[in-house]
């Protein structure tokens, strides 16, 4: 195979480039899979073809044996800035996202101060732009200070681009408040996302309530606490006609409720995390706080039901619930240690290992499924076609690697997958036409 020119094969040291040729890969988007090279310039896909020649001013990203897909979108990322920058910053979290193949993340609002006003939301967005590794879409909180009482200024926040609202970390406990929030936000075309947890049933809980917690002598978090709120919010969505997105579904019954609601035409969507399809409550038997997460790891029957929901479309998206915590916080006793695990850099490999779906369904769950829910489907999860925004992920599906917590880009180390061997890894990530990850390394 001869090439007319001597283009630069990209390495992590290659200067910032906005003319890129992704060569040798198989494009996979909503319309299927086909062997195509992809030329990118000025932030857009400008040419696709079976054998494109690289020009001298182009950076070539080698994609032989790889899948070239629309960039991933995470509906559920805790970036911890402002307020908890010891755990993560918008820059470090964006780097982790880019390395995980994400070109857009929805930043959860449980920052300090809360993302409940224009100033904080604009700050988060600006920090995302400054980092330049991933589109950071701040969510807004549903209630002021996530206190569950007064509505956040939905329209003001919508005017600066916020599309998804949640009190994540807390569920909105008061059904009356949630009803009014749905009525108000619904007519603005916004999505309210719920952390489903009836908190009166989970006081002091550190793990799933069931046989395992009974043996371990740890306070339990019953599945019912999630399912009651899933049920309530489905009924509120039915009543108001407003869209509800259900965060991190973890129980079999929750999946059943959503399946039935969708069959009824209720405007509900749902996500599940890689950890809820790969880990079970039995992992708490060593009392490691790494496995404390909210909602908690459940039983194998729940894991299987959540997987089935992802396979049959009941659940629309994989979302990481990337939740960094500094080491000292996770070294506290189980009841004091904060819940949460890292997720961005392992989501692809873990989901691949634990979900029996083909590549098109997997990428749907990671890319265009969540892009639609996040309200970013005009820029992310797009077809890989001429004229489209060039937010792309190049996946090496056969790359085998081992998770080394210290090697992750996140400032925190709280992954439950340390030492685990995964297959499939992001090789390159292209954001707005520029390579931000090349050969598995972040460019900045």
């Amino acid at each position, binding site marked *: 195979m001869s090439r007319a020119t001597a283009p630069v094969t990209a390495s992590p040291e290659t200067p910032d480039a906005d003319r890129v040729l992704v060569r040798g890969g198989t494009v996979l988007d909503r319309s299927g899979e086909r062997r195509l090279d992809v030329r990118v310039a000025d932030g857009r896909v400008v040419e696709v073809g079976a054998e494109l020649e690289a020009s001298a001013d182009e950076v070539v990203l080698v994609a032989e044996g790889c899948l070239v897909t629309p960039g991933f979108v995470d509906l559920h990322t805790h970036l911890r800035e402002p307020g908890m920058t010891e755990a993560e910053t918008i820059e470090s979290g964006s780097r982790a996202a880019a390395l995980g193949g994400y070109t857009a993340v929805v930043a959860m609002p449980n920052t300090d101060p809360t993302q409940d006003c224009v100033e904080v939301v604009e700050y988060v967005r600006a920090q995302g732009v400054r980092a330049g590794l991933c589109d950071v879409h701040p969510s807004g909180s549903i209630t002021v200070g996530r206190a569950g009482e007064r509505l956040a200024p939905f329209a003001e926040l919508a005017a600066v681009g916020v599309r998804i609202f949640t009190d994540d970390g807390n569920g909105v406990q008061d059904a009356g408040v949630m009803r009014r929030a749905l009525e108000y936000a619904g007519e603005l075309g916004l999505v309210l996302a719920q952390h489903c947890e009836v908190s009166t049933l989970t006081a002091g809980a*550190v793990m799933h309530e069931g046989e395992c917690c009974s043996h371990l002598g*740890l306070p339990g978090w019953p599945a019912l606490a999630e399912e009651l709120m899933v049920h309530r919010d489905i009924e509120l969505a039915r009543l108001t006609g407003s869209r509800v997105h259900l965060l991190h579904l973890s129980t079999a019954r929750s999946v059943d409720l959503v399946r039935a609601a969708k069959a009824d035409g209720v405007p509900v969507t749902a996500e599940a995390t890689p950890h809820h399809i790969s880990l079970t409550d039995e992992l708490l038997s060593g*009392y490691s706080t790494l496995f404390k997460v909210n909602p908690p790891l459940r039983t194998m029957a729940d894991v299987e039901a959540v997987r089935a929901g992802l396979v049959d479309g009941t659940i629309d998206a994989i979302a990481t619930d990337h939740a960094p915590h500094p080491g000292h916080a996770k070294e506290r006793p189980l009841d004091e240690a904060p819940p949460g695990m890292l997720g961005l850099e392992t989501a692809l490999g873990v989901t691949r290992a634990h979900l029996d779906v083909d590549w098109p369904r997997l990428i749907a769950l990671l890319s265009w499924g969540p892009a639609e829910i996040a309200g970013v489907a005009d820029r992310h999860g797009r077809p890989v076609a001429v004229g489209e925004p060039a937010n792309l992920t190049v996946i090496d599906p056969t790359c085998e690697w081992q998770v080394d917590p210290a090697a992750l880009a996140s400032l925190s180390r709280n992954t439950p997958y340390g030492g685990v061997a995964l297959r499939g890894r992001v090789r390159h990530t292209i954001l707005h036409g520029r390579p931000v990850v090349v050969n598995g390394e972040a460019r900045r």
Partner: protein
Amino acid sequence: MSPGPARHLLSIAGTDAEQLRRILATAETMAEVGRRPNPKVPALRGRTVCNLFFEDSTRTRMSFDTAAKRLSADTMTLAVGSSSVNKGEGLRDTVETLSAMGVDAFVVRHRSGGVPWQVVDWTDAAVINAGDGWNEHPTQALLDAFTIGSRLGRPADMTGLRVAIVGDIRHSRVARSCTRLFGLLGAEVVHVAPRTLLAPVPTAPSTSDLDAVVGEVDVIYMLRMQRERMGSALVPAGAEYADRFGLTRERARRLRPDALVMHPGPMNRGVEMLVDPSDLPQSVITEQVTSGIAVRMAVLFELLGSGSDPEGAPS
């Protein structure tokens, strides 16, 4: 030190049955030591035992302290209220700091389940669980089994015995450890409690009818009912708990004459105990306390004694 599977005593659940039987056997020797005019042996001379009590428990702490001293170990005690833990120092920093002073064994009590397992990760010393949250209190179960074995003249053998554990099973590390150890030694354990005070998935057969079992069992083990739990949604306020689950005079009269009445202490008179144990010939509650020293000596010797003669100097 000889690292091996026997390095720590974290729970009955995770401990080899052989090792538990060995501890009970060693406790016989230690009990004999305790009856001497000078109840002290040099077995752990030069070793340091640190009592790390993040939750107040005077009797367990003093029991461990006495046990260590009778083995000639040096002891140090860190109890909440007199430590930097209150000043925000993390668990790990506390453990690492104390380890650096040269500790051979930590005796750990914490209100949160799992803390002894975390401590194991941060020290080379042996770790003994002296009660973690709702989870386990293995030395309590061992001293109870020892007490029963001594009274019945059949050490480490509870075959065929029926034991009722009565009260707040859900929140009880004592119940959890005792249920496991008694079962391991051949007993048949029944939990007696309202549903609200059982584990979410009960770990033994259960009933809420104390009257149905009180006259049948070989051992009735009354748990402490914390007063703060009365009147919460777990049990109704007022005397209802005592009426349904307390050891009343009426129930005491129905006990078999050869039954044993036990309580881990401290007792809540008027709640679970409505009779004075000193009026009950079946009570072995004082013997439990005495056994505690011998059993804890045996545990310390098991973990730190390196297989030497319990009465001799450390090898």
